[in-house]
């Protein structure tokens, strides 16, 4: 293609600035950013090897020895609560002997992790504890042959992140103002939040960055999701108010749209489709949050929907329900998506049922909205193949204070992406 004539070993310096073009009232992204295999190769190095990435939620590994297996930034890892330390450990899921995957189930509880190939055994803190025929080795480096920890692991209010770059800034510094939005989600649940059983694991034949944009795109809601709004109306929701709010950058590529919408929220905005039984509980939740946080913050927590992007590939949307969604490219035109449902512990059953309903009807890949997002993203990717048009336009809202249906939040992502892709000091991480 025109912009990228380098050997596949790397992109020329300034690739980000060549693909993201910003003028005073015009912001464009070159479609090579979504179609070039060379860009994808460099994203793996410059983005996924150097930024904090979401691993999982602490509620998934409550007890010592509990573990979950994950793909993070394209690499197989597992997260386990150490039996001795009670800490969250995140290990590269590869035997230090000759490479086999050590943790071979998606989740469970284990005292030890034994590699089946030659039966080396590791404990939940990663320590090598058993090697058959150890005499054959003389002085085996037991310390050095423990499971390899991911370079950096940290957790913010239950959300566990890791980074392959040992020199990355602290997680809290990295999260910048996204922390406030994570706080809003967590503070709303006095007994804490938990990930529910059941995972949405789906796929989209489109570049991963299209789902970044789509997850924080207020502009498409009415046009793409007509059938979802019709469903809400059929259930008695008044949708005449529409969507009203702001889009903002939260620093370091993180961004949010923060808005009011017609639908109900289990914390804590009642709608007729919730039924009268749930009304008492929702009013009580609202009163309790007002008591704890004051009128203004409680209103923000209860009435505002917040689609949050934590750069580069974590979405936490606190809307009709709360989704925790992450996705990774497996090709320039394909991504895999994993989404979990986050909910308050000990939620009243009527409210929990409405929350579950809302998640699967709006956010689920078998619902009334997400399949149409999948279609939209695939349609864009197919459109790119036509050529002729080189640039996407992401200027909406540059001429006014950005609303939730503008594109300021997407520009925040792209500016950080541009800067990451411009850097030439980012090496591949082991």
């Amino acid at each position, binding site marked *: 293609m025109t912009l990228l004539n380098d050997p596949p070993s790397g992109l020329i310096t300034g690739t980000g600035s060549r693909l993201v073009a910003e003028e005073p009232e015009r912001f464009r992204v070159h479609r090579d950013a979504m179609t070039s295999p060379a860009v994808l190769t460099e994203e793996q190095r410059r983005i996924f090897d150097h930024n904090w990435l979401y691993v999982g939620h602490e509620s998934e590994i409550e007890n010592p020895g509990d573990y979950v297996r994950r793909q993070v930034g394209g690499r197989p890892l597992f997260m386990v609560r150490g039996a001795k330390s009670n800490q969250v450990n995140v290990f590269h899921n590869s035997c230090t002997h000759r490479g086999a995957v050590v943790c071979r189930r998606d989740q469970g509880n284990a005292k030890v992790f034994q590699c089946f190939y030659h039966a080396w055994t590791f404990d939940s803190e990663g320590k090598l504890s058993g090697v058959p025929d150890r005499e054959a080795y003389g002085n085996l480096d037991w310390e050095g042959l423990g499971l390899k920890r991911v370079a950096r692991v940290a957790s913010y209010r239950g959300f566990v992140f890791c980074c392959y770059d040992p020199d990355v800034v602290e997680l809290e510094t990295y999260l910048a103002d996204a922390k406030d939005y994570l706080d809003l989600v967590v503070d709303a649940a006095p007994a804490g939040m938990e990930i529910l059983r059941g*995972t949405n*694991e*789906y796929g989209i034949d489109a570049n991963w960055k299209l789902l970044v944009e789509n997850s924080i795109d207020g502009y498409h809601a009415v046009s793409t999701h007509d059938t979802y709004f019709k469903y809400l109306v059929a259930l008695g929701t008044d949708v005449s108010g529409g969507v009203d709010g702001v889009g903002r950058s939260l620093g370091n590529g993180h961004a949010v749209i923060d808005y009011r919408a017609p639908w109900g929220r289990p914390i804590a905005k009642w709608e007729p489709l919730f039924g009268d039984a749930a009304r008492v509980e929702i009013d009580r939740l609202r009163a309790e949050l007002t008591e704890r946080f004051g009128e203004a913050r409680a209103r923000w927590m209860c009435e505002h929907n917040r689609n949050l992007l934590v750069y580069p590939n974590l979405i936490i949307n606190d809307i009709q329900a709360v989704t925790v969604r992450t996705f990774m490219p497996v090709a320039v035109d394909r991504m895999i998506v994993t989404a979990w*449902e986050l909910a308050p512990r000990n939620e009243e059953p009527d409210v929990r049922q409405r929350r579950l309903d809302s998640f699967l009807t709006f956010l689920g*890949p*078998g619902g*009334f909205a*997400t399949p149409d997002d999948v279609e939209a993203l695939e349609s864009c990717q197919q459109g790119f193949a036509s050529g002729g048009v080189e640039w996407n336009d992401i200027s909406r809202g540059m001429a006014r204070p950005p609303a939730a249906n503008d594109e300021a939040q997407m520009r925040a992502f792209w500016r950080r992406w541009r800067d990451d892709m411009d850097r030439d000091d980012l090496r591949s991480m082991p």
Partner: protein
Amino acid sequence: MSAPPQEVTGTVTRAEVEDLLFLEAELLDNWDLDTWLTLYTEDAHYVIPATDTHDGDPAADLVLIDDDRLRMTARVERLNSRKAHREYPHSNLRHLVSNVRVGAVDGSSDDPEFPVRANFVVYRARNGKDVSFVGSYEYRLVQRDGQLRIRSKRVMLDMTSLRPANDVAIIL
């Protein structure tokens, strides 16, 4: 004390069950979804658990689909509307149903239920891409006005994730 339980009786042949299941498959393949709905009782449920939790309980766990009759109707309206963009134009579908097994009658004596298991493959072809869904159906069938009807259908996907098929906008 309630009355001693009465023995639940009732019979249905595998041929009768297969007639219903094959009719359902044909209606889905033909996108005749309004007629498809008439095969279900008023209190029907249609559920697809998540691919990682086959025992998923729609009242507690995240599942892929949890439709009561109201939501089944909404789903049909959506798919008929031309605004379900993922399914407009509609996919070419082929539901293959086999290995049908009818279990022992249960339920209550005045409304016997017939548990049925079957295996399926559903092929979906659209826009140059062909995908398949593989798994088993768990039905509970009842008699309504002399007709065999579906009170519940639970679809257990064998795929370890939905990824090979991307999404499940169609009815399985």
